[in-house]
Every structure is written in C-alpha cells, then in structure tokens.
C-alpha cells in the first residue's frame, strides 16, 4: 500500500547548523509512527518541517528532500514545493498538530468552544451553528465531561488534561489524514497521560488517521507506536517495529538509550536502591 506521508532525504538547516540530516520515513493510514530521541536530536524540527512551520519565524531552511503527501483526491504532492497559501489550506485541515503545552496553544481570551469552532468555520466553511454542533460532537468524541457546558469555558478554567483534550478535539475537528503530536503528554501527570494515550489510540481506530508522535519517552513509545524511528544528532540511527526496537535494537545509541530508561518493576525483589547499569555510548 502506498504511504500517506513519505519523508525522503529531508535536510533542514538553521544558518550553518544542520538540525535534520537526510531523514526518511513513511507513515501509512491508521498507523502510529513514533520519532524518538533526546533534546536536540532534530525530532521536533522534523515535525515542524512537515507542517512547513520550520521556515516561519525560526529562519529554518529545508535544504534538500521531499515530503510527499497523498491528498484526499489521491494525488501525491510534495509539501516542500507548496506555496504558503496552499499550505494554509492543508495545515489544520488535512494535517494537524498538537503540542506539548496546551495552555500556550490556546488563546486565553476566547472560550475553548469558540476557538475550535473557528478552525471548523475557516477550513470546512460551516456557519456558526453548524460549527458549534461539530465542536460539541468533537468534545464528546474526546470524552470531555459535560461537553456543552465546557464549550463556554476559558482555558484557565480547565485542567491540563482537559486542555489537551480540547487541543486534540481542535486537531481532529477537520478530519485530518495525518495527526502530528509533539510530546503530547510530556506536561501531563501520569494518570492523565494514560487517559490521553488511550484516547489517541481509540481515535486512530475510529478516524483512520495516521499518527506521527514525537517523544523522548520510551514508555510512551511502547504504549502507542507501531513503528519507531530513533534519531540522534539530526540523523536517523535506527528504525523498526516497536517490538524490534525494544527487544533487539542493533545500534549502540538505541541500546544506550534503552539502558537508561527507568522501568517500573525493575527493582522487584531487591531491598536496596541500585544505580542504573549504564551502557557507554560515544558518538
């Protein structure tokens, strides 16, 4: 089957600094791909490049490579070659994105219902009433309790978990083909993280969207990913299915990364605390 999104040989620079170098991967409909790596590995820049946001404000430049996206009409287009106007019609509509910190992604002076409705009105051309209907439907889909009442609330009146649900509702409101989630649960408590990850899994099944999740957390990867791309210092160092990566990682960097992951249950049967058994890694 043809991929929905195919990144090929992507290289992104900021001045003389290469943030992403020759990165390639495919994502298929209904699949979750995790791009995992530590700070500065280039994983977020990769995500921002797909949205063509990397060139806005941050002076990043896509030097080389293609980002092929299959449109709902079945055409393959290269996002790198699209005009800003064309990208505006794609962003938030066919490809949407959620970020780590929902509070900074939401406007503090508008109710959350109005903010999600704005996206629907802009992209789907619905009138105000139809848009509000759609928002209510989305709030129920992401299991916001008392959805109707919540629509009138402002971001500061909601908890972090509820705000992230609003962001997911907004991202899904236009039926995107690809959902990019950049550290979507990093700022959330572990019980709320479990709720949001479960929600994302459910929604992928219900909507058939492809999900690209950017994370530093190997626990999150293990919970949601079908396939994994491991990045280090701007490059892909290893790729494979989630089980391959966790059970038979081949690259020294992946092994070192996995060795430093704290695992619940690793101390079962031992009375005293114990240091991590670190694997030396020299790049």
């Amino acid at each position, binding site marked *: 089957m043809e991929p929905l999104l195919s990144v090929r040989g992507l290289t992104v620079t900021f001045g003389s600094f290469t943030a992403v170098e020759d990165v390639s991967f495919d994502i298929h409909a209904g699949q979750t791909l995790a791009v995992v790596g530590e700070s500065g590995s280039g994983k977020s820049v990769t995500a921002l490049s797909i949205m063509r946001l990397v060139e806005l404000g941050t002076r990043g430049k896509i030097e080389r490579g293609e980002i092929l996206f299959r449109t709902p009409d079945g055409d393959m287009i290269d996002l790198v070659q699209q005009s800003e106007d064309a990208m505006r019609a794609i962003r938030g509509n066919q490809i949407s994105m959620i970020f780590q910190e929902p509070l900074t992604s939401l406007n503090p002076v508008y109710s959350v219902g109005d903010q999600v409705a704005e996206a629907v009105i802009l992209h789907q051309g619905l009138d105000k009433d139809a848009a509000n209907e759609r928002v209510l439907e989305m709030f129920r889909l992401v299991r916001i309790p008392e959805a109707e009442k919540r629509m009138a609330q402002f971001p500061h009146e909601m908890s972090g978990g509820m705000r992230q649900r609003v962001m997911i509702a907004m991202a899904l409101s236009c039926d995107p083909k690809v959902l990019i989630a950049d550290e979507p649960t990093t700022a959330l408590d572990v019980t709320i993280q479990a709720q949001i990850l479960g929600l994302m899994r459910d929604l992928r099944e219900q909507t058939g969207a492809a999900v690209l999740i950017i994370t530093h*957390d190997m626990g999150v990867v293990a919970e949601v990913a079908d396939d994994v791309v491991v990045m280090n210092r701007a490059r892909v160092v290893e790729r494979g299915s989630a089980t391959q990566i966790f059970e038979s990682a081949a690259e020294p960097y992946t092994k070192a990364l996995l060795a430093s992951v704290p695992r619940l*249950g690793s101390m*079962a049967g031992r009375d005293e605390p114990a240091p991590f058994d670190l694997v030396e890694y020299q790049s």
Partner: protein
Amino acid sequence: MSPLVEVRDLCKHFPVGAGATVYAVEGVSLEVGRGETLAVVGESGCGKSTLAHTMIRLHDPTSGQVVLDGVDISTLGNRALREHRRKMQIIFQDPFASLDPRRPVGRAVAEPLLIHGLATGSEAEDLVADLFVKVGLEADMMRQYPHQFSGGQRQRVCIARALATNPQLVIADEAVSALDVSIQAQVINLMMGLQDELGLSYLFISHDLAVVERMSHRVAVMYLGQIVEIGPRRAIFENPQHSYTQRLLDAVPIADPRARRDRPLLTDEIPSPVWPAGTSPDRVVMREVVPGHLVAEEA
C-alpha cells in the same frame, strides 16, 4: 539512633480570598532516616512541593512541627534558623532558573560557604574545586557561565552548591524531571553515589514512579495534601494497599510493547484542594498493614 527529620502533624494552608482556603498540606507526619531516601510521589497539586518547602521553612507552617536532628525548627526565628539551614539544602527542577546567568557558576557554589562563614575567599575556591570534581565536573569549569553548560552539567552545579555546606538533608524537588533520560540516569547514579559517600538523607519529590523505584528506600504517596500510604519501597511497589497508589502505578507506561494494556478510558480528575469558608477536608485515618507500612482507611 533517632531519625534525622521528624515531621509531626504538619499543616500548610493558603488563604485564597472570600474566606476560602487551599489545604496544600494537611496533617502530614513522616520521618526521614539518616542516609535514607524518602520519596514523596503524587500528581500536580497534591502538595508534595509545598510539603518540602515547608519542611525547610521556605514557607512557615500553619501548624505542626519539623524536628531536624533533635531541634524543632518550625518556630525558630530567622537568626536561630540560619545555623540550621546549613544542614538542609534543596535542588530544584530547572537548573537554568536556579543559577544567575551573569555570574560564573563557581561563585554560585561558593556563596553558601561564604554566607555561612565556612570558608574565606581562597579557601572557598579550593573547596569549590573539590565540589566540582565530586559531582563529576572539571575544576576549571567554575569560571564558566551557566549558558556554557548542558542541562545535566547545570544540575551537577546545583548539586555541588547544595553540598557546599555539608548538609545532612538534601531535598530534590523534581531535580531530574527536566533532564534527558540518559542524563537523568547519570545524575541519579551520581546522587546515589554521593549518598553512600557522605551519608546524606534525601527527600526525593517526584512524579516519576519508575525513577522513584530505582532510588528510594521508602515512599510516601500524597493525595490532596495528605499522605494516603507510606512504607518501604518494596511494600509500596509490590503490595500497594491504597486504591490511589494502585491507580498511580497502573498509569505508568511500561517500556515494553508486548505488555501494552487496554485500559478503561477514564475522564475523572482530582478534586480541588480549595475549601470554601467554614468547610475543611476530613483527615484520613491511617491503619498499619505491617510495621512501617501505613495506609489510609478508605470509605
């Protein structure tokens, strides 16, 4: 030998207007043994940081006692408190925010030595050099500025500063939460090594249960300002008694795709710790499971 720290029935309430009160810490009692790590776990807003800050008098307690090495420090005046502050130090989550960007990091580490009169100028420089080596940095690095360091190195600087006064208790308030996982593991190993070497007690505040399992001797679980379960680390992780402890443990992602679980999709949230005028939370009643392992009775 008596424990290093005994906290007895500690309360910290914050008024929030219209007579309402946040019961951030409510009736907490615990002990931290010498050379021991007590982890305090719980979700955002459960009061774990307020508890730590109140223990070292960054907040004055509303009521209750904190006995450090035999002295009740909860009511000491500023002057009397100063000599005891030397014995307790704190490391915060964000080392960049904890260091002055315009001063070489060595000055930050020397400052507690000078303030507490533990060393004069040139002695302090030698001591700082020793501290840098102790936390795995090079002595020369003391002349550099915070922006010249990586996040992990900056946290090592903060650890060096915390150790400068030769403390008995070090509070780590989400001290490794912001670090990349490989760096986090190195800093945890460093902290554990320093504990063995110096006999330090840690109060380790964290939301990360997998990290807590690695490095703690005992664990306290906080919920809405109160401890709902406390006991040896193995008892809490292998035989959790309180439904909230179980829920927290169930929510931790397992780094093994084969162990993926289908969880029921919950949407419930933690209730507010704000109580309107004239109301207050009920105190939990603790029951002993086995000696040393206490759990709050559930309705």
